[in-house]
Every structure is written in C-alpha cells, then in structure tokens.
C-alpha cells in the first residue's frame, strides 16, 4: 500500500519534471530556418560540396588540359571529356585541347576523387546547393565555357 502511494507520487513528480522542460521550450526562441526567405543571408560553409565546377579566369580560360585523369578516377562515370589534338602555333607540338567537359550531377557521389586526381586544380566543388530540376537531362552539365 505504501509502495502504491509512493509510486503514484513519484510517477506524478516525474511527469511534472517533464512538463517543466516542455514549458520552458514553449517560450524559447525557435530555431526554424525559413528558407527561401533567408536566401540572401544563408551562407553555406566554404567547404560544402554542392556540385563540381570548373573555375574560369577573367579571360574565360580554364586550367583543364584534358588529361582524362578525373574521368578515370570517377567510380560512376559521371565525367565525360571530349578532346581534340591541336598543334600549338608557338612550338609546333601536338597538344590535347578540351572541347567539352560533361558532368552528370545526377550520378555524382561527391567522393572527391576527381578533384584529388586533377594535377592542375582545374575542377573544384562549389557551394551551390539548389539542384532541383524537372528533368534528369538538365543535371548533365557542361563545365567548360566554349
């Protein structure tokens, strides 16, 4: 009988302690992030890997030499490089030249192997995260400017 009453009050007390926590929470400032309203202030961490990009300098040149190491490193075949052989006008040597650098965001698993493999740091991950598109074909992106 004593145990019954003791158990009853102990149980009730534990419930009240729980209620206290939620009551405090009721008046605490909320942590919801209101995307897309906060789009202008939302900053991703600089290392966030959103998608593969190929930076271009102000003249529109990239550093890619079409060596194909990234294509070989990719486990999913997300990268397709089309290249052509051109003759360098200065030295007269045959040189590979990048025609098209295709990247399929839809099958990329962000393993960093392509970035690691690149000898010239021609590709890097950007912080863009708004990837939603309506068709899969839009996920296949051409990274180099032509």
């Amino acid at each position, binding site marked *: 009988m004593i145990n019954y009453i003791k158990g009853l009050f102990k149980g009730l007390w534990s419930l009240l302690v729980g*209620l206290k926590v939620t*009551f405090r*929470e009721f008046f605490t400032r*909320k942590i*919801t992030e209101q995307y897309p309203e906060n789009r202008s202030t939302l900053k991703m961490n600089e290392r966030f890997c959103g998608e593969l990009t190929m930076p271009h300098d102000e003249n529109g040149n990239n550093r890619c030499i079409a060596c194909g190491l990234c294509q070989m490193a990719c486990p999913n075949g997300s990268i397709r490089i089309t290249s052509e052989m051109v003759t360098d006008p200065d030295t007269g040597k045959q040189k590979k030249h990048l025609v098209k650098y295709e990247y399929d965001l839809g099958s990329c698993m962000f393993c960093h192997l392509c970035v690691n493999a690149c000898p010239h740091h021609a590709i890097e991950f950007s912080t863009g995260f708004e990837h939603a598109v309506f068709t899969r074909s839009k996920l296949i992106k051409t990274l180099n400017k032509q």
Partner: protein
Amino acid sequence: MFDFGILTNWIHTQLTSVMSEGLAIFLECVIIGVLLLLLYVIIAIIMIYMERKVCAAFQCRLGPTRVGPWGSVQVICDVFKMLTKEIITIRHSDKFLYNLAPYIVILASVMAFACIPISRGLEILDFNVGVLFFMAASSIGIVGILLAGWSSNSKYSLIGAMRSGAQMISYELSVGLSILTIVVLTDTMQFSEIVMRQADGWFIFKGHIPAVIAFVIYLIAGNAEVNRGPFDLPEAESELTAGYHTEYSGMHFGLFYVAEFVNLFIISSIAATIFLGGWMPLHIPGLDGFNAVMDAIPGFIWFFAKAFFIVWLLMWIKWTFPRLRIDQILTLEWKYLVPIGLLNLLLMVIVVVFKLHF
C-alpha cells in the same frame, strides 16, 4: 451578464406572430442545426490550427507560416484539399459499415457538442439529465471506431479498433466518476444549472480537495477518452501507422480527423463547465469592483477562454509524454484511476454531508 435567452425568446415571439407555433419551432430547429454545424466546423478549424501552432512551439519550430498571415489560412486550404480527394473503397471491405462508420463518429461528436452551454441562454440541449445524455451520446463514437476497424479488412485497423474499444470503454468509467463527484456537490445534472451554482465560486475552489482530484482524474481520463497522446494507442502512428482509420481517405478520413479534434474541445469545455464555472466570470467575494469588471466581459469569452486553456493543457501533455502500452493503459485505469475516483467520490460525499465545502 447578458442573457441570450432574451434574444432567442424575441426571435421566437416574432416567428410565432407570423406563423403557427409548430412551423416556428421547426424553423428554429433548422436554423439552430445549421448554426450548430457551422460552429462545429469553425471550432474544428480553430482547433487544428491551434494544435499545429502549439505543438510547433513546444518543439522548437514555427509551425505553418506560408499560407496567410502566420499560416492562418493553412487549415482552410487543407479542408479544401481533403474535400477534393478521392474516397477510395477497399476491396473485400464491408462497404456498408465502412461508409457508415465515420458518420457514426461524427454524429456522436455533434450530439455531445450540442450539450455544451456556451453562454447564458445559449444552450441547445439542456434538460434535467443533461450529464447523462452527454455521457450516453459521446459513447456512441466507440461504435463508429470499432466498425471502422472491423469493416476496413485490414489487420492494422482491427488491432487499432480493438485497442480503442478496450481503452475508451474503460476510461468512460473514470470520466463518469469524476463528473459524478461534482454532481454530488451540485445535486443537479442539468448543465445550465451546474453553471449557475458556480456564480459565487467555481467548483474547483468550492469543492477544494475532492474537486481538484476529480479535475485531474477527469483530465487524464478525458484525454484517454478522445484518444489523444499519451493515450493515442488506437492510432499509434509508429506502431499501427494510423490505427482504425488506416484505410480511410478523403473526407471520410476528414470526418474522423475533425471529430477527434472537436472531441478534444468537447472534453475540455465540459471540464471548463463543471470545474471552472463555464461561462461564469471569476468572482472573488468581497471585491465588488473587481467582480463588476469581470462581469463586463461577455460570458462566451469566459467560456472559450477556459475551454481553450484546458485544450492547451492537454496539448502540453500530449507533446511531452511518450505513449503508454495497452496493458499499462488498462493498469492505470483499473488500478489507479477507478479506485482513486471511488475514494474521491466518498470523500466528496463526506464533504457535502458535513458541509465542509465553501
């Protein structure tokens, strides 16, 4: 305190002056029925919006914010969405019972809703055994839930329905006992009369210890009666996906959903009526100025404020505690609430007999 009886009587006399009494009463019934259903829907919408906002606030969230200011139009949009959805009939289900079940649930809910005295003179069903009628009407809902579970031809639904059967029938006992405690104090079963007796102090103060115990028991049992957390076993979403209404879609599901929320309001408003004085303002004996100010606030505001405060209390409880298990729910009822309720009834009788109440 404004008596709505004057208004209703005036309407009645106006109507009888132009038509026969029978026709006037028929017309009044129709008008009241329409108004009742309208109020029912409005309450449901307010309740659903409140649930979403309050639960969000408890959970470090904001709740709906997009549609309308502070998301206030969200629920109305949801209602329209629900109305336009297809009602899917399940193969091998018992079609008649399957379609009937949500209406039984909503019928019970509306009948119980009609018993609530909202303000002076604003009582729809008000007769000398009002409490009994309320208890009887609200119990019909169980039948609907059992039928829904049985006729859906789904194992999840069946388990949910069986749980709710065991749970709701048990807890009705505690609800009845705690209301009975107050009936002992008031010696009337008419809701309007119960409110009137609280003019000089709400029963939770007048009946002191036994009334407070009865109030707590009523809140727990009432919560269980309407299948709200932590007693939401019949629809425990992590166990039975949605319990007895798993197989319902469109407005049939909507009826269950609406009835559930209005039932919560009904339970709260009955608590407000019998423990917190219903539409009766807060009066402190001896402070006449204070009492006059309190009287200036219309009765229905008092009523809704009290009812929604209790709704908030129940939401606070729901969003804090984990769910009980079926055997624990029955243990709580039969080993704790019922014996305590019976003892409490006895205590109240002693209090009344020896005039120990205020």
